[in-house]
């Protein structure tokens, strides 16, 4: 059976999935605190051409590739001055902790573009763009003074011993899984006010990867075309 058709098909599909990841990075080159992702592939099973399965032979054929995982790259990037006192940036490692008022779930983010918001209790709170309450070192929501400035409490910075496998929740939020361990309060770390951390996705880098992925994609499509022509030759034998 001519499997080259399908092998190249899954190859093209995997490249397309990689393109989605790169597209997301490209779209977020200006998102403060964004951490870029990368796609990881593995090759698929090999089967024997002649011998029955599960015997060791040197005559095998592979069946393509699969996108195995996407990893988040937590490298930090440069700061951008905004002159806005409710913007914060973390230099070095760590996250801001934010709490969703709807379900009290705590999320973590590197995006420090906060603002003040009047809540039902008549007080102004420091919140994220998505409406989550920013937490201080004591894991309490930060209340702002009447003039929206001069906060007494700074947002707390929390880190994890292991950042591998953290879940992306959208809106630039991460949530830890069991293996990440408990959040560790970084006592000495001070967020820098008036600055935002830029996205660590770089247009140049992503562009080069995009071109490469596109080429790999079209190469796999050429293979599909070739496999199709082979079928055509077979069909025209008579």
């Amino acid at each position, binding site marked *: 059976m*001519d*499997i*080259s*058709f399908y*092998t*190249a098909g*899954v*190859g093209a599909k*995997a*490249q397309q999935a*990689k393109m989605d990841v790169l597209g997301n990075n490209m779209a977020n080159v200006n998102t403060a605190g964004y951490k870029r992702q*990368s796609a*990881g*592939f*593995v*090759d*698929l*099973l*090999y089967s024997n*051409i002649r011998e029955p399965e599960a015997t*060791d032979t*040197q*005559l*095998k*054929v*592979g*069946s*393509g*590739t699969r996108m*195995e*995982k996407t*990893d988040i*790259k937590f*490298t930090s990037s440069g700061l951008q001055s905004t002159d806005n006192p409710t913007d914060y940036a973390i230099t070095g*490692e760590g996250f801001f902790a934010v709490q969703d008022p709807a379900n009290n779930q705590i999320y973590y983010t590197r995006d420090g573009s906060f603002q003040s918001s009047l809540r039902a209790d008549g007080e102004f709170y420091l919140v994220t763009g998505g409406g989550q309450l920013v937490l201080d070192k004591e894991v309490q929501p930060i209340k702002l003074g009447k003039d929206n400035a001069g906060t007494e409490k700074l947002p707390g910075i929390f880190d994890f*011993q*292991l*950042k*591998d*496998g953290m879940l992306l929740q959208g809106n630039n939020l991460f949530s830890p899984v*069991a*293996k990440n*361990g408990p959040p560790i309060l970084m006592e000495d770390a001070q967020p820098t006010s008036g600055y935002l951390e830029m996205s660590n996705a770089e247009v140049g880098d992503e562009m080069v990867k995009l071109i*490469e*992925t596109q*080429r*790999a994609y079209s*190469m*796999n499509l*050429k*293979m599909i075309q*070739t*496999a199709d*022509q*082979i079928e055509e*030759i*077979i069909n*025209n*034998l*008579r």
Partner: protein
Amino acid sequence: MFKGFYMATSGMLTQSRVLNNISNNMSNVSTPGYKGDTLATATFEDMLIHRTGNKDKSVSTPLNTSSMIKTADELVTNYSDGMLEFTERPLDVAVQGKGFFQIQTAEGDTLYTRNGSFNVDNEGYLCLQHIGRVLGTDGPIQLGTDKINIQEDGSITQSDTGETLGKLNLMDFADYAQLQKTGEGMFRNTDAANQTAAGGSVTQGAIERSNVVAMDEMLSMMTSQRAFQSAGQIAKIYDELMGRAIELASLS
């Protein structure tokens, strides 16, 4: 009878297998640690062609050899190094030079790979996702953190405390032909005596790219396709000739 059909179709079948293999290489141009394969073909039992005299049938002169069938013989894996891609991810490790990472599967097997895009599993061990734990010099390596530094010799230390967490154990093989590809970037060693110490070093924050050369695969694809076409054409012409031969018989 109709020997030509079998020769032409064996050519077509073999080229289609070659294409299957090229297709797999193309599919894996972006797979870290992937090693490209080449399908070696061979002819099946060369036969001598003899000439026997018209009247005197006692002497036959050997003329040449003729092969009956072309067939796929062996999958040859190219173990040359792929280029390094710097990823800045602390858990990405690439081997430079000779050597393979050792991975212990859930079933207790030890498999080998050049794919060093590791993760940390739920118990805090360094692992290759969906395959198993990475083996160090003292068994699986428990990290519990990804704030690590990996030296060129494979020793892993925690970056803030400097505590030693383990050491990657690279393994090399005297004869790569004894390795079997098992999928998901893994190789199985079929001969225990084949193992040797690895001379390679490791680089943190990088992965080894697939060693497939797109240009080569494209060229092989084109030649293979044309070879398939030629074999098909010959089968067609042979069919025509045989048709004529049968027509001749009906005329008489």
